[in-house]
């Protein structure tokens, strides 16, 4: 990766958001807010009136007739009687009335109350939005008053850094120019997260296998962390390693020739790997030449195992494997191509196998012959047979 090109902009907030305008906007929002508040009060009054009316309508039919003071004109009353206490002429709206009983009237009133409530809720939501706007404007105004400056830096290598203001974060300064960087940044973040998850899973797995592998795990983890920062390059490498692995696979695991082929593929992979990884790989190849078969088998077996465990979702194993491959030069990782293939485990397993499975060579060879006919049921069995790890791994490899 070459050095990232950096472009930077330094913008004073007061230039982006002139203070007077911000204040004006804040005032406008406040005005709207008070409008909504008064509307809300009115609606609440309506609701209160409605409920009291419902109570009255329910009480009236209790008597056959009520003695009341009847309003007469503008300023007079005279005593009178209220009869037909169960008959109500209800306004339906738009100058339409209907004769209804007390119960039916109550129902109508209740329906009106419901619609009022829904209006109140809608108003409340609007007021919330306005309040959020107002608070934002206030914060912007304060920022502008404090003469805060917004600093942005752009990097071209998909790992953009956004050094924000010296003060509170500027909510509203969307940077279209940064949109691309952000997208790639989010992808990187996901990538990193997937890697971490895969690492954790691997760790658990390996810890269950053998404690002695913990050292290797740590080493590999360190490598993983180092490689997590690489983004684009990783994917390219993954594809390359995948191709290499496929080539390896095709040659078949059933024979010890794997040894040689593995060696061949390793240098290829080394070429593909990034610098940091190459020395490691070379070291590995030299150290474990005599254990190539073991490595291969172990790797494949181990890789298969993590796959089974790592079938948590299409992406997690894939992402994990990407890193691992780059590190370990290990084969199969379809990180870039999420497919039904079970991703093979990564360098960790390789290292582990090399160290810890010296004795397992025998196991593998035995299993090899047994496994050959069982290739087809690898995946399902692989996921089930945890105790027989070598076998399942091997199956996965076969795939």
């Amino acid at each position: 990766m070459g050095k990232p090109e950096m472009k930077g902009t330094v913008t004073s907030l007061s230039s982006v958001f002139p203070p007077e305008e911000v204040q004006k906007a804040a005032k406008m929002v406040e005005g709207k807010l008070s409008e909504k508040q008064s509307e809300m009060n009115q609606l609440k009054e309506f609701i209160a009136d409605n409920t009291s009316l419902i109570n009255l309508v329910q009480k009236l039919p209790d008597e056959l007739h009520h003695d009341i003071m009847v309003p007469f004109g503008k300023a007079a009353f005279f005593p009178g009687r209220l009869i037909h206490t169960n008959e109500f002429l209800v306004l339906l709206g738009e100058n339409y009335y209907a004769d209804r009983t007390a119960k039916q009237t109550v129902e109508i009133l209740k329906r009106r109350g419901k619609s009022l409530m829904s209006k109140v809720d809608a108003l409340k939501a609007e007021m919330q939005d306005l309040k959020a706007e107002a608070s934002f404007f206030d914060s912007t105004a304060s920022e502008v008053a404090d003469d805060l400056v917004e600093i942005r830096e752009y990097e071209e290598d998909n790992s953009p850094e956004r050094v924000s203001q010296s003060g509170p974060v500027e909510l509203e300064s969307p940077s279209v120019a940064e949109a691309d960087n952000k997208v790639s940044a989010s992808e990187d973040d996901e990538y990193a997260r997937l890697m971490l998850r895969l690492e954790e899973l691997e760790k658990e797995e390996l810890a269950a296998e053998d404690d002695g592998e913990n050292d290797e795990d740590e080493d590999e983890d360190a490598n993983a962390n180092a490689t997590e920062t690489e983004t684009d390059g990783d994917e390219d490498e993954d594809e390359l390693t995948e191709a290499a692995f496929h080539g390896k696979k095709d040659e078949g695991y059933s024979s010890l020739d794997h040894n040689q082929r593995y060696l061949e593929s390793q240098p290829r992979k080394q070429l593909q790997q990034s610098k940091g990884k190459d020395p490691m790989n070379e070291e590995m190849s030299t150290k474990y030449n005599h254990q190539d078969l073991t490595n291969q088998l172990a790797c494949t077996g181990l890789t298969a195992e993590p796959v089974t465990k790592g079938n948590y979702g299409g992406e997690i194993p894939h992402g994990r494997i990407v890193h691992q491959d780059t590190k370990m030069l290990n084969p199969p990782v379809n990180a870039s191509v999420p497919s039904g293939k079970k991703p093979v485990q990564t360098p960790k397993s390789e290292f582990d196998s090399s160290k810890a499975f010296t004795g397992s060579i025998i196991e593998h060879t035995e299993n090899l012959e047994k496994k050959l006919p069982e290739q087809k049921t690898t995946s399902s069995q692989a996921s089930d047979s945890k105790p027989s790890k070598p076998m399942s791994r091997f199956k996965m490899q076969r795939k």
Partner: protein
Amino acid sequence: MSSSSTALRELQRDLENKANDLSKLQKDIAKNHQVRKKYTIQLGENELVLKELDLLKEDANVYKLIGPVLVKQDLAEANANVRKRIEYISAELKRLDGSLQDLEEKQHSKREAILKVQQRIQSHQAGKAKA
């Protein structure tokens, strides 16, 4: 120099006229908004009435308030009337929408014209200052 100043005055007069037109347009738009609001409320109310009428029994008494007179109406007739009113209101709303768009476009173009005139004035003044 004098010619430029008369030209300047003309431009300013032009600017005033355009500004007046713009304010008129804005008033029209505001009126349009108000009428639209009214119609929308009426439409809502009519829909409510229709709902209630549907809940009534066939023989229920329905009255319509026409001025100071409460006139008894047939349920079917009332239903039909309310529906027709709803249709009418929706048509009115659509018409208003169209005219609102028209007005907004005109306003937009007026604003642009004003801008142009302003720019010309500025260039004139700059020219005058230089000279």
